[in-house]
């Protein structure tokens, strides 16, 4: 404490302790349900249309696999997950199907669609303060793209987290390690989410505390009715497939490497 450098170090050291304690308290506060959450996150998903087609993992691949494209409807109200300590929310839809041909066996889970929902920025967030006090650079930089910029800034005061998708095309077409995904039965779609806070622990929708997920009560499970994958589209009429017949891997004997 006797000289300036020493005092600087001592002050900074105590600042780190204070910041850590503050972050710890905030992290605990955003996990315990002390102001009880009024609504719980809920989601529902339904299958619209399933197609299975033959394809290649990439253009030069000699390997031919079956790919399933699952269109779905999704309705979700996850707005209660957005608190003062929410940075963003990752929402994803998985297709879960049993490995066995007869609809039994271990479950394979494959992501067919996902999205990141960022929290709306508050009046004191970095972007808003920067825009407020140093707006010069912003304007000259992107005069033509200002309206598109403003949209991505999420300065709107609409509560995020409400999803309503009709006949949504999947982001990812799925296949199986065996290369065969047609005519599998007893598959379901499932909506899952992962909350990423500013400080604290990640919260997954699979609660570790029974009915409670962090601060929230487990809402309605976003799980669809069971459905079956249809037979391969155009099995009989596909001439290209006949030509490349010998190279088509046998069911179950293909290499388990998926390159997508």
């Amino acid at each position, binding site marked *: 404490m006797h000289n300036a450098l020493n005092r600087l170090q001592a002050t900074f050291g105590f600042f780190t302790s*204070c910041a850590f304690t503050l972050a710890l308290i905030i992290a605990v506060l955003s996990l315990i349900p002390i102001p009880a959450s009024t609504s719980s996150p809920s989601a529902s998903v339904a299958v619209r249309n399933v197609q299975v087609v033959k394809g290649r993992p990439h253009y030069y691949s000699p390997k031919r696999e079956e790919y399933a494209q699952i269109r779905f409807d999704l309705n979700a109200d996850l707005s209660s997950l957005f608190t003062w300590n929410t940075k963003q929310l990752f929402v994803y839809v998985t297709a879960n199907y049993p490995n066995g041909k007869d609809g039994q066996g271990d479950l394979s889970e494959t992501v067919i669609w996902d999205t990141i929902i960022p929290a709306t920025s*508050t009046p004191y967030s*970095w972007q808003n303060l920067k825009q407020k006090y140093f707006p010069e650079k912003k304007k000259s930089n992107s005069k033509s793209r200002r309206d598109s910029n403003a949209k991505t800034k999420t300065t709107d005061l609409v509560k995020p987290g409400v999803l309503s998708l009709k006949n949504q095309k999947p982001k990812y077409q799925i296949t199986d390690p065996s290369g065969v995904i047609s005519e599998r039965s007893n598959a379901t779609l499932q909506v899952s989410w992962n909350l990423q806070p500013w400080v604290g622990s990640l919260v997954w929708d699979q609660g570790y505390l029974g009915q409670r997920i962090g601060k929230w009560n487990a809402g309605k499970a976003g799980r669809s009715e069971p459905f079956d994958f249809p037979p391969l589209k155009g099995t009989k009429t596909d001439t290209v497939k006949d030509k490349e017949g010998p190279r088509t891997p046998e069911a179950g004997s293909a290499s388990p490497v998926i390159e997508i």
Partner: protein
Amino acid sequence: MDAVVAQIQDLFEGQIDFDGQRLAEQLYTAILSISSAIALVVGYMQQDIFLSMWIGLAGTLLAMLLVVPPWPVFNQHPQPWLGSKVSLPRGGIVVSGGKGR
């Protein structure tokens, strides 16, 4: 030249006396603790974690501004050092009876 260097050194070292050191320590402890508490409460009230961050950082800057430079208030109680050799008792201060004395 040496005088200039010594001045610059003094400026950067910014030494303060013992009472000043105690005061500085109490000052930064209080400021940082109180600003952290305010940051938590205000951020929770306004439901804005950025507000917490800004209040905490502002408190830290304030504490550093008040504590790091050697303000005159930290040098109000200079330690009365022992005087020069002239004012010492004859034979100087014998710290220990070493050999040869």
